[in-house]
């Protein structure tokens, strides 16, 4: 009995960090593309039809996408309350800025369609600004997190690089999404955006993954200990190959009959997945790098059991009906008639 209880106390936090990781990853991919679309929004007067199509491409999804952030932060709050407190105490100001960005973005999206015609451009500007603010803030917070919330200019510099890197990565995801969901002129434009964003993202990923092991000795040891190194180097290798291949592919897009238009998005998802696995591998089982591990931060076992029942029933259902929703709105965004 006692043994069973202590084993539950061991594996429940592992299950919950897994669920939380899933939520973060899904969030980064899904809100990643719609934040990216917001970042890329062209603001010229003549761009209005393209803006409409771009926003139409994320219309049916953004609400649900953002909910994954609530799930991720919710799981952190429920399963690891001490870590939640610690993380948010350190990230108070950037979190507040991110929230304002999310608010502006979320509402601008709805206001633009419903406000007086003359205000549409103003809401589009708000949408773009909100997307940029959100992405920068998230990247900055990621940087602070990776640095274990150390003070000092090095950590600030790293966080600034991370902020730009994440913003580039979201643009990359967003433009790949547009390559998939749009056609003709806008699609060609998206291909060009994707190439540029891809190179910027590569630069970001390389600098972050070079600095991270250099400043975190524990991370360095973990990555470069023999014989594991042979295996784990697959992660950056795959990631790098996806970058190269996507760049070569984008140079040839769009092709006749829209062939391979889904491939860039798949490749960017692969890149996100590899970066995520790399981060997880660097820090697991710490939930606050160098300060707190998942067992130290976990809630009472009884609470985790209670919520696990719900999570195991609901998360698969969510995944199924998310898939259903994407199936319903498959195809090119321009087919969503706006008038």
């Amino acid at each position: 009995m006692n043994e069973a209880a202590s084993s539950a106390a061991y594996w429940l936090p592992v299950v919950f960090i897994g669920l939380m990781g899933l939520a973060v990853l899904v969030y980064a991919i899904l809100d990643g593309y719609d934040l990216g679309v917001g970042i890329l929004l062209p603001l010229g007067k003549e761009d209005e039809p393209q803006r409409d199509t771009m926003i139409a491409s994320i219309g049916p999804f953004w609400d649900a996408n953002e909910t994954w952030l609530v799930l991720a932060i919710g799981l952190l709050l429920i399963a690891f309350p001490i870590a939640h407190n610690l993380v948010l105490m350190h990230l108070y100001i950037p979190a507040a800025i991110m929230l304002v960005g999310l608010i502006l973005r979320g509402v601008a999206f709805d206001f633009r369609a419903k406000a007086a015609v003359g205000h549409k451009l103003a809401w589009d500007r708000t949408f773009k600004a909100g997307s940029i603010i959100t992405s920068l803030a998230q990247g900055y917070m990621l940087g602070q997190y990776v640095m274990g919330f150390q003070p000092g200019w090095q950590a600030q510099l790293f966080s600034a690089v991370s902020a730009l890197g994440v913003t580039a990565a979201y643009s990359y995801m967003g433009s790949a999404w547009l390559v998939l969901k749009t056609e003709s002129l806008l699609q060609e434009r998206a291909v060009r955006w994707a190439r540029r964003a891809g190179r910027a993202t590569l630069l970001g990923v390389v600098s972050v993954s070079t600095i991270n092991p250099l400043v975190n000795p524990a991370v360095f040891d973990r990555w470069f200990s023999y014989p594991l190194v042979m295996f784990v180097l697959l992660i950056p290798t795959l990631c790098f190959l996806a970058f190269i291949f996507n760049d070569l592919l984008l140079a040839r897009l769009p092709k006749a009959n829209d062939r391979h238009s889904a491939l860039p998005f798949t490749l960017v998802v692969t890149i996100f997945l590899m970066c995520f696995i790399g981060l997880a591998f660097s820090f697991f089982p710490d939930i606050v790098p160098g300060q707190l591990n998942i067992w130290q931060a976990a809630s009472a076992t009884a609470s985790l059991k209670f919520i696990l029942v719900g999570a195991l029933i609901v998360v698969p259902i969510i995944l199924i009906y998310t898939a259903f929703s994407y199936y319903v709105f498959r195809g090119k965004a321009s087919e969503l008639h706006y008038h």
Partner: protein
Amino acid sequence: MLDTLILSRIQFAANISFHILFPTITIALAWIIVFFKLRYDQTDNPVWMRAYRFWVKVFALTFALGVVSGITMSFQFGTNWPGFMARVGNIAGPLLGYEVLTAFFLEATFLGIMLFGINRVPSKVHTFSAFVVAIGTTLSAFWIIALNSWMQTPSGFELRDGVAYPESWLAIIFNASFPYRLTHMLLASGLTAAFFVAGISAYRILKGDPKRAPRLALKTGLVLAAVFIPIQIFVGDLHGLNTFKYQPQKVAAMEGVWETERGAPLLLFAIPDGEKKTNHFEIAIPKMASFILTHDLNGEIKGIEEFPNDHPPVAPVFFAFRIMVGMGILMLAVAWGGCYLLWRRKELPNWALKTLVGMTFAGWVATLAGWYVTEIGRQPWLVTGVLKTADAVTQIPPSHVGFSLTLYLLVYVILLYAYIHTLKVMALKSVKVEEFETKEPLAGGSLTNLPKSTQEQSKGESHE
């Protein structure tokens, strides 16, 4: 002067006040929308479809504001009230978790199909999506009220070293005040949405909208309000009795009773004075407060004096309570008067329409006042008898909270203005739309009109 505690309290109050405006509308509006859609499915009368389409757009806008302000709420616990999760996280966490898992996702995902899926899915799937969204909004209220009620009247837990551990989830969820609070809140949402729908419809009619759709929506809103308000008064009374039993200090503040007394008068108006522990300018009905709370003219009501250092500030609770009750009485008069006029004359006169326009946001006033009664009334406790508000607050410097508070307030003021302004624009736009027009002018953004024939087809397809 302004320390982290007071700034954090102001920030939390601002966040929750702003947030609650939108769910209060959407919880019940979701069901009104399902009603419109079902009526359309039943009667095939396109008027219901037009009503449905207009209100779905309003719903989408309101829902978006609810989502973004809700995300802000979920961050507050960690940013400003770390002591809350550290002490009662084992209980609050799963309740919040179930809210996100069951409700939030249900709403957010099906909303996509509800808003944009009209000619992509069969009509029945579409109706079903609207129904799931309504279930989601209601479940959302269920979990949040469960948590809030537990904070007011905690049960089903055990304290070990000051940390709460769950003993019985049933006892935690179905705590002493939960049934009253949930019913009271759902009815409050029903009334808010009813006046909201009636008010905006009245505005459209005043602006010369000749169509049937706003008239049907107006009637739906008025009848709903007329039915709900007496039930709400009854439930509110039960809720008050429950509070009297479990949180007597809150009732003492609501009634402005300083010293324990028998046969306490019902104060219609007074200015409570916390310094001198007395009221000025009392206008009272003798013995009525005792009668309402104990059903005995000479029943005893405990005064503030019985709870030294353990009672809420009297004046804000006292005034908020009177504003809530006053709004309730006004709603009763307007809803019943409006129904009577509608029944006798079929069409409301202009002055009545103007009154309804003036009452569009009446539900907001009553709901906010009600929340202030219950939330300020719980002070100085965050979780009654378990955790004081002051012990839960963060250690971060006041300047940080000052910064975020300013930021939020600025954004909230702009958004509230934009929201109300946009509702006005949407109403005015819809005035110009033809009754059975099949193309929606750019206004929609979210919905394409569905010619009747297409829908028949999709209905047919679903049978095959």
